[in-house]
């Protein structure tokens, strides 16, 4: 076992760390945007829209992320839809996570007393306005801790993009492995990179949980 390879490849790991961060942040933004839309769909009075929202969440939550990622990367090109590996990773991660984000927000909305929405409606607001100005802002504070957990899961799940040749932290470790055969130091190096990202995030989530705990 040769631990010096770790020092020699710290630059490569640094770049991998940036790619992991980049994928995670872009996917998180996509997941939040989609998640808010789906959560709203699940809260509206229209039964068909609610059904669409519920189906979206259940389908995405119950199919493994790797299946979805491979679908975007390997299957979509067969019908002429082609993205580069990085974009595939962001899309698959973002869409998968959006289902969990939607569930977190939905339980947040469900936690806002019904009277709040009714008060908004009775003072002449449209459903959309009452939702946007009264219910969603209150729901957001309730959903911040579970959303933090989803962000944490997202960082860890982003490692799957290494299977479609994106050079994130794990992808970098695998590439260096295949050259040096120093599996132990390389994977330990990758683990340290992930701990650098996930431990502070987990600490932040814990603080938020305490702060928003009722």
């Amino acid at each position, binding site marked *: 076992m040769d631990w010096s390879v770790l020092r020699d490849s710290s630059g490569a790991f640094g770049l991998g760390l940036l790619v992991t961060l980049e994928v995670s942040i872009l996917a998180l933004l996509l997941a939040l945007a989609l998640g808010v839309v789906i959560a709203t769909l699940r809260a509206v009075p229209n039964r068909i829209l609610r059904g669409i929202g519920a189906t979206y969440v259940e389908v995405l939550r*119950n199919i493994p992320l790797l*299946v979805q990622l491979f679908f975007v990367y390997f*299957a979509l090109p067969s019908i002429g839809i082609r993205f580069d590996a990085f974009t595939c990773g962001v899309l698959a991660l973002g869409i998968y996570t959006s289902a969990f984000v939607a569930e977190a927000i939905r339980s947040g909305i469900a936690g806002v007393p019904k009277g709040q929405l009714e008060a908004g409606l009775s003072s002449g607001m449209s459903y959309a306005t009452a939702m946007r100005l009264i219910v969603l802002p209150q729901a957001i504070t309730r959903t911040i801790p579970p959303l933090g957990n989803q962000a944490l899961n997202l960082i*860890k799940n982003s490692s799957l993009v290494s299977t479609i040749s994106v050079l994130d932290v794990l992808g970098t470790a695998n590439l260096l492995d295949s050259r040096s055969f120093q599996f132990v130091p390389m994977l330990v190096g990758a683990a340290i990179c*992930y701990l650098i990202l996930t431990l502070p995030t987990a600490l932040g989530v814990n603080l938020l949980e305490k702060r928003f705990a009722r």
Partner: protein
Amino acid sequence: MGLGWLFNIPTLTFLGWGLVTTLELAAIAIVISFIAGVFLAIGRLSQIPLVRWPCTVYIEGMRALPVLLVIFFCYFALPKLIGIKLQPFTAGVIAMSIFTAALIAEIMRAGILAVPKGLIEAALSQGLRPSQVLRLITLPIAVRQMMPALVAQFVTLLKDTSLTAVIGILELLRRGQLVFGQPPFQPIPVFALIALIYFVCNFGLASIGRRLETRTI
């Protein structure tokens, strides 16, 4: 577009064995991770620092790592450390078990802490030894209360078994890849089929979890 190339007995049997491997892997990992998780939870709640600290570090460290990294570690690095070559399936079982054990431990810890103190004191005052109280009172109540969370964790485990495709275990996803790698090279129907199989398994397991959730103890 005919789908005879997919819906024929040999191909479906080939995929069916993949499902068997997936379920086998998940079932073994569920049993091992549950037992290990219970011990880790008890260890983390121990009064003895020499027991508590290693358990805490293990649980928090494992929870901070991606499961795919743990799978690669068990397949590529662990054999170098212990000097024994591991079959992909064995490495997969070890990886899924040691990873999920940390998550089960956190669920069980919450469950144990939620058991009313009066119940434990009542049992102790009846003359039961602490180990008996743990085995007969605390753990059964904790498991029942935490059943929904445990089932949700097992659904995650079942989904994560698909990651072992990348170390060459011939489970459902890997076999699906092999099928669409053959003529007529049409991945979409194959993905639709294996996604449906995963969906039915996970949704079924999750539904059982929800049923248990509504049952009061």
